[in-house]
């Protein structure tokens, strides 16, 4: 197990280095630069700005400088605004992580409860309702949901302000983020529960006279959770790093919009920062998922 973890960490670092190379050279290959605007910048000023951010050096050297600084913990400053990248990213990540974290917890708990309920009441009314609801939710993208929520609760009912400088409400964005994964987890749990419920050992347990809740909790649910955990691993990484659409609609300063805006702005340091940050989180999430398998299911060996 330890060997495996070490190997995986080594692979993860390699992955991140490769991503950094592709991103760095890719972003420099696309036309336009951070200092191009509608009105032309004078050559002297442009030269100053390029020198300030090392853009006047050969590209390989630029990459070298960037990686060296990064290894010293220096993510640099935004080429566009002069603000510290790490500061900007960590603050906006905290916001995204808070929203995403709440959304994931809600969707995990409700998803599993609804999934079990659905499996146990197969083809009866609760199951039918849950299937209808989850099908609807998985088919509806978050921007549709967010827009509907905004329209209903902010404009029609006026319960929540669209925006406020005093107390920003996170209820609607959390709902918009949570419903899709919740529906998905419900379906996953149901399917794998049904699968496990038909297994011999479950029938044996039932025949032995083990209490119903014990059969579900000890024998069925733990095994049924494996696909859910696979899904959760990557989903957590995606959801805590922010959603551009939800952030835009509800005016939330999360990481999602920084990622996209940095590319349109050719904010090189911000592109690198957000890409590497996301890459690191995804790689870690994958690693944790693999280790979590082992904990849930003793049959899986990590070698």
């Amino acid at each position: 197990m330890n060997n495996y973890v070490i190997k995986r960490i080594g692979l993860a670092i390699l992955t991140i280095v490769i991503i950094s190379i592709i991103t760095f050279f890719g972003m420099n290959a696309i036309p336009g630069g951070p200092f191009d605007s509608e009105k032309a910048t004078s050559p002297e000023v442009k030269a100053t700005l390029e020198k300030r951010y090392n853009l006047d050096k050969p590209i390989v050297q630029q990459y070298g400088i960037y990686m060296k600084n990064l290894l010293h913990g220096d993510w640099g400053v935004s080429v566009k605004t002069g603000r510290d990248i790490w500061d900007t990213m960590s603050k906006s990540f905290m916001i995204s992580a808070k929203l995403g974290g709440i959304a994931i917890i809600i969707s995990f708990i409700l998803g599993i409860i609804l999934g079990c309920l659905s499996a146990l009441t197969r083809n009866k009314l609760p199951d039918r309702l849950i299937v209808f609801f989850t099908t609807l939710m998985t088919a509806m993208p978050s921007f549709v949901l967010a827009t509907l929520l905004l329209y209903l609760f902010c404009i029609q009912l006026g319960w929540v302000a669209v925006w406020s400088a005093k107390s920003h409400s996170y209820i609607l964005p959390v709902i918009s983020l949570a419903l899709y994964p919740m529906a998905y987890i419900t379906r996953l749990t149901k399917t794998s529960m049904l699968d496990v419920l038909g297994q011999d050992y479950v029938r044996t347990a039932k025949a032995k006279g083990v209490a119903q809740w014990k059969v579900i909790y000890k024998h069925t649910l733990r095994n049924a959770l494996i696909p859910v955990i696979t899904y959760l691993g990557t989903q957590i990484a995606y959801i805590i790093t922010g959603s551009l659409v939800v952030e835009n609609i509800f005016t939330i300063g999360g990481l999602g919009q920084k990622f996209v805006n940095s590319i349109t702005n050719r904010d090189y340091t911000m592109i690198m920062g957000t890409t590497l940050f996301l890459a690191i989180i995804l790689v870690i999430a994958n690693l944790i998922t693999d280790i979590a398998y082992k904990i849930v299911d003793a049959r899986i060996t990590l070698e």
Partner: protein
Amino acid sequence: MKKLISKMLVAALSVSMLVGCGSSQKDSVSETVSSESAISKSDGSTLRINIASEPDYLDPALTTTSDGGTLAANSFTGLFVHGKNEKVVPALCKDYKISEDGLTYTFTLKDGLKWSDNSELTAADFEYAWKRAANPKTGVQYAYLFDIFAKDSDGNINVKADGNTLTAVLINSCPYFLELCALSTFYPVPKTAVEAADPGGTNPGAWASEAGFVTNGAYTLQKWNHNESMVYVKNPNFYDAANVKVEKLEFMLSADDTATFSAYNAGNLDFIDSVPTDEISTVDSNVDFKKIDQIGTYYITFNVNADLFKGMSAENAAKMRQALSILIDRGYIIDNIAQTGQELATSFIPTGMSDGNGGEFKSDSYNYPDKESKGYFSKDFDAAEAKNKAVDLLKSIGYKFDENGKLSSETPINIEYTLNVNSGHQSIAEAIQSDWSAIGVNMTIKTEEWQTFGNDRRAGAFTVARDGWNADYSDPVNMLEMFLTSSGNNHAQFGKDPSNPSAPEWNSYDALIKQIYSTPDFAERAKLMHQAEDRLMSTWAVVPLYYYNDIYMCKTNVKGIYKTKNNHIYFMYASVDK
């Protein structure tokens, strides 16, 4: 309701697919505003505002965007300020003198001026700020505004402070210098704070990168939640604090129209600086919908070195461009695409631009080729007549037409029109495509992402491209010097390839602009500027479509907010009627 939801969805979808780059370009949504919702719910102490998303810089010299300029104008103030009536009026300046030759300006500052941290504000702060902004090492994009200053032997601009007196020496007499003094690039900055935050001299905007920095204007930034909100509070040390009634300005930082327009309609905002294009027709007659003319022109630029003109003389190439210009139905574009009642452009220099001599540049007193329309062609458009004229012009330079009045297959015209991704630009391109197809011109549309487009246009990698310019200050030279051979804004590529026989001779234009710079007689100078515009328009490489205007929405009981022609909004003298 169905319609609204579907529109909101489309808007959200478009956001999800593509995020706009600039802060001024927005697309999207709304609902009809009833008259009661046009009243602010504010108690009078706070204004809630949306202009754009995150500003780039809050340092008044470094900001490059109009939203950054607005934030600077409400938190800093210079020697002069834009008044409500567009004229600049003294702000920190008590008194000023201009020398006989028009080159030396001596300003005396008001007494007892203070920064928000209670330190004294003196003429030395101006000297420092101006030298800093003019120095290319600082990296200020608007540094070129200081090109009119004489230089000291040390290479710095010639500006000297002595107690409360500031003396500036210019290289040429300049009719718009006082107006420049009202621009954010000319605001003072607190030297101690600037230098303390950036000891290495590599991040000049660092001192104003978070809330709490020192200012000298009506408000100071108290709280900044990035990409969410900014809260400005009144600065008691502002020289005119007695006239500032609203204690707090709260800015919503969003460029998403679904959100901003909804927030305005739901009563969460009192002022929004943009209205979705699709909704303009619904809010057009509302009492809280406002329009203001700007000094800028939307136009299309032909690349004079394009292959399209290969083998032609410069005169014939100009005739071909003229024919294409004649075919464009500008009125249609304004009524159906631009939609906010913009004025049809018949010249490059827009209506409302000063002539630098106390009058308006575009006036009856100048003998324009089309006297009635005060420009270079007629305002009225008649499709049949336009077609005849265009065909005659093209025939005169050797193009052949078939019996249907379309270009013959022996002499086809194929044009590629380049634009950046934007539904408005796209619709205008399509309108022109349809106009040109009347005589069988085959126009294709090439859409590029903004940065790529900017690059291609500057480098001349296009045949015809959309273009536009909002003047930095009210003087025609700002729009004429763009076409100097050496200018980075010379998208038409004038003079860049002197050996190309189909491009117009351009040394004379460069010489003319230099002459305008150095002419101290402002009446004579105005004449020269007309000559320069005549020369520019005679190439037909620049084809004006309309003059920009701007719109905003402001609750009816909020008074005193004004927006200048160069796009800065002043909130400091606002008040809310209850």
